[in-house]
């Protein structure tokens, strides 16, 4: 299964996780794992997702998440997991 990674970085505020999760649910993207930390008041979240059955193309999801990030005041990135696997694993 090809998995995807969503990262959300920004100033902490109410509703970031809710906003992202609602968007993912609406587009049939399944969340497999969530980890989250706050560093120096900055909200840092990573989600491992399965977007294989998503109702939209990967590139559309990526663009829409970026736009959603702007609305929520944070930076949201959708990336294929392979980039991290290839750089961080032998």
């Amino acid at each position, binding site marked *: 299964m090809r998995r995807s*990674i969503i*990262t959300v970085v920004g100033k902490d505020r109410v509703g970031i996780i809710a906003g992202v999760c609602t968007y993912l649910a609406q587009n049939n993207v399944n969340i497999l*794992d969530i*980890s*989250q*930390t706050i560093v120096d008041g900055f909200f*840092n979240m*990573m989600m*491992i997702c399965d977007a294989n059955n998503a109702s939209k193309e*990967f*590139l559309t999801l*990526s*663009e829409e998440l970026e736009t959603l990030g702007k609305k929520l005041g944070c930076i949201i*990135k*959708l*990336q*294929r*997991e*392979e*980039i*991290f*696997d*290839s*750089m*961080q694993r032998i």
Partner: protein
Amino acid sequence: MININEVTETNQMIEKENLDVRTITLGISLLDCISSDLDTLLDNIYTRITTLAKDLVKTGMEIEREFAIPVVNKRISVTPIGIVGAAACKSPEDFVKIASVLDKAAKEVGVNFLGGYSALCAKGMTKAERMLIESIPEALSKTERICSSVALGSTRTGINMDAVALMGRIIKSTAEATADTDSLGCAKLVVFCNAPDDNPFMAGAFHGVTEADAVINVGVSGPGVIKHALEGIKGKDFEVLAETVKRTAFKITRLGQLVAKEASKRLGIPFGIVDLSLAPTPAIGDSISDILELMGLERTGAPGTTAALALLNDQVKKGGLMASSYVGGLSGSFIPVSEDQGMINAVNSGSLTIEKLEAMTCICSVGLDMIAIPGSTSASTISGIIADEMAIGMVNQKTTAVRLIPVIGKDVGDEAVFGGLLGRAPIMRVNQFSCEDFISRGGRIPAPVHGFRN
């Protein structure tokens, strides 16, 4: 499973340390486009390139988006035109027509450079190759995206000094033909010793005759990432230094390998090689010079510079070789002056000279790269500098190159401005003593004794 720290590290490299894939270069063989009729040849070339490369830029941009990694350049290299045009071209003007068609094809598919307006004359020149070389000043002044390279020597063949003498004059004429843009034409013209067939980087990329019909080669970058890693280990010994560079190079190369494989799969074109070269850009922090200075040099060019560069170059290769089974091209550290703000500062402060740069090229690819010299420099002096650099490559069995820009109308103390990735360059002082009699001898310098390893 991937954890948040690993994800953060990778994304920080991309966002803050200028990690990118410098180029996806599609190599295209034009051998079966050859015809003795020039118009047929031009048609064949245009159709071949615009068919094979039609999805190159789009695919590059998709990969960029899906992995969120910048793929800065999408480029094409073709079979050396000195071979492709040999049957059809009867004059240098005929070759210029090929250059114009290549430029048109490059614009049609949206690549920013197309390399391969080249002649391979390490030992001798065919009539066609001589005509191609003579057409270079006009070809580079009339086109926008064409890059030209000429192979002048190799460890196996020695140095073709007739071609070296000719190229001194051609570089000078190219500078004059593009004088209104600070002799920009010379930034797209490079000469080689031991030219690699699979180099993805411009201006020296061409699709060698040993290659298949089409191939994807990728050049990675990442001086900023290595610099950041070294910032954390100030004062530590050389083992720690070497290990840190190696580990970082591994990660950078894996990224290149991933992008190369993806591009290859999506375009249905075989993957060739990953070129491990660390390629600087004018962006602040994306500098080879900064790495050398972080190792402990006050300024690049200070005593110790060559040793520092040797260590950097070797560890980049060691990390890279572990990361990809198919490493090729130039694979070293580029030390262009104009594209690296740290190098420019070193020149301006008087620390770095052409002579020191020459010493540095003994242990790293690719040679005297993007060095602006006074426009009044004579053709024979340019040939002399080329001959020295070719000799270093020939004797050390490595690739060396020269990309000199005699900036017409400018002298030491002035600055040439090229813009974009090519940046700006201070005019460097050149030794004023003549080598005219040496260059005008003609003939070949024989291959060195270790060229005969059979």
